[in-house]
């Protein structure tokens, strides 16, 4: 998911060159010379099709009447089964929601505080936090999962909901940290001085001045954590014990014979996540408008 961050950061921190008048002109001129179906545009269109094909396939098959991959007619059988005969699925969705909300909440609080503290106070281990928070974003998921599993079984912790939450908090933290840091970086320090001058103490400044000002960053960090937590399979599958979150359930279903219920579930999820994306975009707009 780190690519999401890179886009957001790219969109927020526009490079000065991009705003340069001569460069704009050059870009436009370059554009005028290009044909509508130049090589690069064609590749882009094909790539976008490539990216969307699986989604269309899922939606198409979710309305299939029969169980196999042959299309036999339009029906809503699988939506019926999804709604009324899939208790285990809804349980797993419930677990996923609990894990996502709790771990996102913990990581948002910890990550925001760390971002604020790291930017304004100098203390030992400051660069340690910065470099360490970079690592989990770039290391393969398997490694984090394996190391957590060995560690957790080493301290004899029972695998279950608790351990999943710990794992998810751990991999969400750096992202929250990054998003809030980007916001804190642009923060005007004189506002804090002003609040001190007006007689606020440290805690009051934190809650009444700093946190409201960086709220958009915190919100997008939270949203991001929720999406990443719902999405994660590899790490969860190592530390889950007997608890089945949604990705684990989907995986088990794929393993034990294909069921078209997954298709209908996917379509419902696509709609849900689309809604969430719209929300995220709104908070991002606030994020962008704030600076």
């Amino acid at each position, binding site marked *: 998911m*780190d*690519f*999401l961050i*890179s*886009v957001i950061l*790219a969109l927020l921190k526009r*490079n000065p*060159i991009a705003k*340069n008048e001569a*460069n704009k002109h*050059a*870009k436009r001129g*370059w554009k005028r010379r290009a044909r509508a179906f130049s090589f*690069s545009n064609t*590749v882009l269109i094909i*790539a*976008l099709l490539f*990216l*969307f094909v*699986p*989604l269309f*396939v*899922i939606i198409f098959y979710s309305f299939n009447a029969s169980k*196999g*991959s*042959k299309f036999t007619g339009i029906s809503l059988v699988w939506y019926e089964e999804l709604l009324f005969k899939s208790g285990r699925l809804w349980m797993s969705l419930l677990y996923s929601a609990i894990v996502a909300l709790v771990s996102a909440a913990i990581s948002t609080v910890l*990550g925001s*505080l*760390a971002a604020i503290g790291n930017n304004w106070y100098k203390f030992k*281990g400051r660069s340690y*936090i910065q470099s360490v928070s970079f*690592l*989990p974003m770039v*290391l*393969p998921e*398997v*490694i*984090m999962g*394996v*190391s*957590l*599993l*060995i*560690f957790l079984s*080493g301290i004899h912790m029972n695998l279950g909901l608790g351990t999943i939450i710990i794992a998810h*908090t*751990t991999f969400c*933290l750096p992202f929250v940290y990054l998003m809030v840091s980007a916001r804190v970086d642009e923060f005007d320090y004189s506002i804090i001085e002003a609040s001190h001058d007006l007689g606020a103490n440290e805690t009051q400044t934190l809650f009444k001045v700093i946190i409201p000002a960086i709220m958009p960053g915190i919100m997008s960090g939270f949203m991001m954590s929720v999406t990443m937590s719902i999405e994660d*399979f*590899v790490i969860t599958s190592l530390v889950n014990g007997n608890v089945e979150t*949604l*990705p684990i359930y*989907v*995986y088990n279903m*794929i393993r034990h014979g294909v069921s078209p219920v*997954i298709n209908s*579930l*996917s379509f419902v*999820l696509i709609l849900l*996540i689309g809604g969430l994306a719209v929300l995220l975009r709104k908070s991002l707009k606030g994020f962008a408008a704030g600076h």
Partner: protein
Amino acid sequence: MGIWFSLFFVVPLAIIVAYSFMKRDMFGGVIREFTLDAYKQMFSAAYAKIFFRTLWMTLVATAISILIALPCGYAIARSRHQTTLLILVIVPFLTNSLIRIFAWMTILGEDGMLNGICEIFTRLCFFVTQNKDGIFEPHKFMFTKTAVILVSVYMYLPYAILPVFTSVDRFDFTLLEAARDLGATKAGSIFRIMIPGIKSGIISALIFTFIPIFGNYTVPQIIGSTESYMLGNIIMDQIQKARNLPLASAFSVLLTVVSMAAILFMLSSGKKEASLKKMKKE
């Protein structure tokens, strides 16, 4: 946060490094005794083969992604609808990764969509050539290395497109005009001015696709077979089935080292570029 991280990230990493040097016991635990057994086992022929297969598949998938990403990033950066196109690139990735892999199963499967299309075409050929005894045999797309590479490219293409887009967007287009004025052809100016100019973006795209594909577990697990297993699958198998923790740890260490080397490579090339720019300014 520092404490949380030390506890749940740094310490566990340190533990797997330590475990990789220990002996395994009968019950899936470890005996605290220094040995290099796990590493010896890791460098045996069978595992070395898997290592090189992983490396090869990752390199192919990364190369394909970059080759697709370059024109894509360029086209997005130049387009008037940047934001819309970026959202279009991201949207498929908000769906659960397992569900996307499942969709590929339906496409590639024995009676899947791709085979359906192939069937129609072969039938058409039979009809045209008046071949009445021709039988259509479904292709086996699933469970091959090619399928794993294809789906890996699919899964990580945006990781390549976005850094390329960012660097093209920041690229100084007046340089291209200058090159054209000095008599370069369009293709020449792109290849000799633009590509070196966005080198750092290309390198980060390389790293962002290379590392996750290299440590991938789900794609080879579901799409592939034992013939296309990668390092991630070995680690998981050692943990979940064989319960050989030292060997799994040793593989994790290997994976970490390779990933770290890639990251350091990226950082150092970024630094080099920065210092070059500084020199130019002075």
